Each structure stands twice: as structure tokens, then as C-alpha cells.
């Protein structure tokens, strides 16, 4: 029997059948999805909170530190300063000259974080540029870059660092620009030199895989220039892994700075600042003398910092990975 009325199915189709909203599934932007995924990662969430608190304490160091960086806890007349165990006037004890470990730790972490973040940012800038060019252009530049970084990255890290540090530190024209071998500036540049390669390879990989994707072809078909493609398409899609690399780079710098200080090759920034690495260096002698607070607090701070940064990196990786996945 022919149904001559207007088919009911087409008009006023049952609204809650296929209506996405009715299912309470909101459509989220990729950024929002990544944000959600990040906070889902419990470790990253806790770590971010801790890091934020740390950052606040550290940035407002003049306010939060109880003493100046070289200030002794007690005036000499008032009593012995040296190697005091933790107590009310010095929450984390004092060092060999009687300075408050707690305050110095704050100043030290500030310096080390500064080193870490600055060198990481530098690494990322250099690495992204080189990696993007290598990925896009290909050819000899790409081959050369891959080979060079291959070999560089294959060497034992510490050996390389020590040799390069010595060589660069003795080049007068270089030290004039980036500072003396024991300065903080020098260290930042040193870490950046080692850091950019990993980032470059990462970005290159990203660019290579994205290059072949259809949306790039589509952009070209619409007439977008190379620069535009890089800036508006490739980079935003690579932000994820770059962020992760940045985070891990910071952690790496912090550990690197401590390791160098352990061997006495760290920054010797003079009497007006200190670094986490220098404070950690105290731990080896402190351990042998039985001054446990010299070991516990600096090493504890170091481990806390690195663990938090690693968790954040992990969270970022989670947040970002699925975003790059097609579907699923």
C-alpha cells in the first residue's frame, strides 16, 4: 500500500536517537581532550601541584627564604653556627660555614631551575628549527644531520660533556661571549649544545610522518606556501612531543648539573649564588661525617624535583599521544 503522506522518518526525526548532545557527549577540541587526559594521570596531577608550589616558593625567594644566601644563622657571638642539625632557627640544618641549608636550597633550586629551563628552551628552539628543515628538505642536509647526531648521541654522555666543556672553555673568543667555563651562562650553552640533537631528531621524525598525511597535501593543493605549512600545520601538530621533550630536557639538565658539580666541574658562580648541584655535592662529604641533613635535604630536593618533572612529562606524553592517534 503506497504511503502518500510525507514519510514520518524524514521530518522531525526522533531527536534523541542520533542526537549527539542527548547522549551527553560533548564535542571537545583536541586541546580540551589533551587537557582532560593530562589531569587524568594522577602522578602528573600531583606533580604539577607540587611543582607549582615549589615554583612559587622559589620565584619569591627573597620572601620565602629565611636567610640571605650567605647569611649565617647566628651571629658569631651568639654561638656555634657550623654543622647544626635541623632545628627551629635552621629548619634543615646548616653547612660548614653556618649557612641555613633551607634558604640556600631555595636559592639553589632557583638557579638550577633557571639553568634547566633556559637550556631546555634553547635546545628546543635550535632543535625544532634544524629538525624541521631536515625533515622538510631532506637531501644532504638531512643525511648529514642524522649521521652527525647519530654519532654524537652514541658516545658516553659524561665523557663527551667533559671533553667538550674543556675544549669550549679554553676558546677565548667563545668564553668572551658565553662566559667563563665555570659560569652559569656557559653551562646553559653547554646543555643546549647537547640537548638540541635529541629534539631535532624528534621533530624531524614528526615532520616526516606528518608530511605524508593528507591534510598537508590538501594544504598544498589549496596553494599554501611551505612556511605557512610549517607554521600552521606541522608545528602545531608536533607540539605534543616537543613539550614532552622540553620537560625531559629540563630534568636532564638538572641531573646533568648535579653530576657535573659532583665532579667539581659544575658552575662556580661565586659567593653570591649557589646551585642545587653544589648543595648535593656536599652530600658525599656530609655522609662520611655523619651529617645526615647535608645528604637528605639536597638529595631529597633533587629527587623530588626530577620525579615531579618526570611525572609531568609522563602526563604530557599521555595527553598528547592519543591526540596524535587517528580515531581509537
Amino acid at each position: 500500500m503506497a504511503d502518500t503522506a510525507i514519510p514520518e522518518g524524514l521530518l522531525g526525526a526522533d531527536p534523541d536517537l542520533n542526537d549527539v548532545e542527548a547522549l551527553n557527549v560533548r564535542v571537545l577540541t583536541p586541546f580540551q581532550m589533551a587537557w582532560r587526559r593530562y589531569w587524568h594521570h594522577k602522578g602528573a596531577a600531583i606533580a604539577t601541584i607540587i611543582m607549582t608550589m615549589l615554583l612559587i616558593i622559589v620565584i619569591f625567594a627573597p620572601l620565602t627564604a629565611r636567610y640571605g644566601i650567605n647569611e649565617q644563622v647566628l651571629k658569631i657571638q651568639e654561638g656555634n653556627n657550623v654543622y647544626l642539625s635541623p632545628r627551629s632557627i635552621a629548619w634543615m640544618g646548616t653547612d660548614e660555614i653556618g649557612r641555613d641549608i633551607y634558604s640556600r636550597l631555595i636559592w639553589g633550586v632557583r638557579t638550577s631551575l633557571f639553568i634547566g629551563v633556559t637550556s631546555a628552551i634553547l635546545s628546543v628552539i635550535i632543535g625544532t628549527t634544524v629538525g624541521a628543515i631536515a625533515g622538510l628538505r631532506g637531501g644532504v642536509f638531512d643525511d648529514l644531520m642524522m649521521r652527525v647526531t647519530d654519532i654524537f648521541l652514541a658516545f658516553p654522555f659524561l665523557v663527551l660533556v667533559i671533553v667538550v666543556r674543556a675544549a669550549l672553555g679554553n676558546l677565548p673568543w667563545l668564553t668572551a661571549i658565553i662566559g667563563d667555563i665555570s659560569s652559569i651562562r656557559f653551562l646553559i650553552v653547554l646543555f643546549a649544545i647537547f640537548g638540541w640533537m635529541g629534539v631535532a631528531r624528534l621533530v624531524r621524525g614528526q615532520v616526516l610522518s606528518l608530511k605524508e598525511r593528507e591534510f598537508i597535501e590538501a594544504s598544498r593543493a589549496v596553494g599554501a606556501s611551505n612556511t605557512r605549512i610549517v607554521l600552521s600545520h606541522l608545528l602545531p601538530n608536533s607540539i605534543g612531543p616537543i613539550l614532552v621533550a622540553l620537560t625531559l630536557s629540563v630534568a636532564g639538565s638538572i641531573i646533568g648539573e648535579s653530576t657535573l658539580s659532583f665532579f667539581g666541574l659544575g658552575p662556580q658562580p661565586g659567593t653570591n649564588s649557589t646551585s642545587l648541584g653544589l648543595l648535593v655535592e656536599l652530600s658525599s662529604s656530609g655522609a662520611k661525617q655523619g651529617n645526615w641533613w647535608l645528604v637528605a635535604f639536597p638529595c631529597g630536593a633533587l629527587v623530588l624535583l626530577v620525579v615531579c618533572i618526570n611525572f609531568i612529562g609522563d602526563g604530557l606524553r599521555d595527553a598528547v599521544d592519543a591526540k596524535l592517534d587517528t580515531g581509537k
Partner: protein
Amino acid sequence: MPSWIQVSEMTDPLLCLKDFAVSFRTPNGDVQAVRGVDISVAAGEMVGIVGESGSGKSVTFLGVLGLLPKSARITGSATVEGLELVGASNRTMRTVRGKKIAMIFQDPLSALNPVYRVGYQVAEMIQAHQQVSKSEALTRSVELLDIVGIPQPKVRARQYPHEFSGGMRQRVMIAMAIANDPEVLIADEPTTALDVTVQAQILEVVQRIQREMNKAVVMITHDLGVIARVADRVQVMYAGRVVERASVNDLFAAPTHPYTVGLLNSLPRVGQERLQPIPGRPPNMLRPPQGCAFRARCPHAAPVCAEKLPELQPHANSMTACVRINEIDVAEMSGITA
């Protein structure tokens, strides 16, 4: 009752699914991918399972073989030669997989292990179920490669999957599948990843094997062309249910479900000016709709369609899940083009 339905119910079906259902546990709730299907396949016949992506056609048979991820919950019954597979132990399943039921997958490049030679991979299938020596298995695998039409089988057996073309790789998959002479062959979209010209060849191989070895074959596809070419009977699936069951001729000549009509109409025709897709999208299986799942896209939908989940009922020579089949002219969908 049409004669052919009686016949296929008289011959014992080799593979028999009754009220088979699969749902996946996800953080957002249960996704009901398959919501109770009855399918049976007898020896010597090729049953086509046709449906869109997401209709549950692949999930059904992956579930039968127990190849779904751990988040899958399977209920209902699936028997092969009388042996119940739902809830069977892993041990039991291992005697079934590759031996009683063999599966041919969609993308042979990713379905074959890239680091082993092709001959070895076929031989592995043989050795999994037969007590033969390695050399015997390898010899047999060369024979199998020959059966499926791979030239120079002895040489090719020593090559790796990436050295084969797409069509040849799929032949290897087929050779692997028939290695232990299984009663049932399940081909999951075997031609989707292939060129059109190669598709025909592969279908020909599968059909030849079905006829010569009298196997029960399940051909899962979204391509009606494939169905037309090789299937004997067809089951149309939508949103996890079977909505029409018919012989292949009846399906094309006299479809009995609006969805089938929609599918047929959406095939591009020579001289047709505009394409006729089915409006709308398949439903979200997280909260499947009440009643007939197709009603949102069906031009014949009426309040009765929302009442309960429609069961298959006979109509003419086929079975249909459309409750309004007797009230409407299903083919009237073509009138909506205006």
C-alpha cells in the same frame, strides 16, 4: 515457507549462532556492538554478511573465535559442529581456531608476520594442529600455495610477506586458512584492501575452495558487489542485529527491509545524476535506541517502530526485521529522490 529455507534448516548447520551478543566495557559505559544475532551456515554454502562499518559484522565472528580484547563480554550461543564456543576454555578454543574454523583477515600485509618467511607461516598453521615434521609441513605448505594459485610456489615460500603483492599476500592468507581443512572459513572483508582487478581473482579463489572442498564460508563485507558475485545467502546487519535474511537473488530483486533498499539505492548507477546516500548516521552503540535502530533514518518510520526490538519474521521468500513490512512498499524509498 520457501523451499530453500527448509533445506538449509534440514542440513545440519556447521556453524550456528543463536542470540549471540557482544558488548565492550569502556570507561563511558558498555558499548553493545552485537545485540543478539542468529546466523547459521551449512557445508558448501557461502553466507554473505553485509553491513556498514560499525554494524558489528566483524565483531560477531571475532567474538565467535575468541579473538576480541579482554574488555569484551560475550553472551548467547555459538556452536561449531555442535561444540559450544561461548564460554569455552582457551584450550578448547585452540582446538577450534585454525582447525575447525579458520579466518582470513582484511589486510594481509599487517596480518602476516613480517619477519618470517611465508612458507614457514603456513607450515606453522599446519604444525599447530597436525603431528608432522617440519619438512613435511613445509612441503605441504608449498602444495597449498600452489592450490591457491601462487606461481613458483617453492621459490615464493622462501620469501617474506613484503616481497609479495597485495593479491598474492591474500592468497597466502587463504592457503594458511585451508591448511588444516577446516569445516568453516570466515573471510573478514578479504578484498577491501585490494585493487578492484585483484578483488575478482581473490573472490574466485575463495569460491573455488568453497565449492571444491565443500566448505561453509562466511563472507563478511560492506560491498554489495562482492555479495552479488559469490554469496548464496545473505544476512544484512545493522547496529548489531540482523535486519534481513534472504537468498542473494531475492535480496537484490525483492529486498524486504528499508535498510537493504537504502543500501541498494546508494550504489552508483550509470546515468544517475545524483547519488542517493542513506540520510543520517548509524546510532551510537553506547546507548542503542529503543526499538528498531534504523528508524531515525527510515522513511517509513512510525511510532510502532519504537516499541520493541524487532525480531526476524518471514516475508515472501526472506526473513525481515521490519515490523511494518506488510503495511508499506519498501521499495518506495526510491520515491524520495524528488
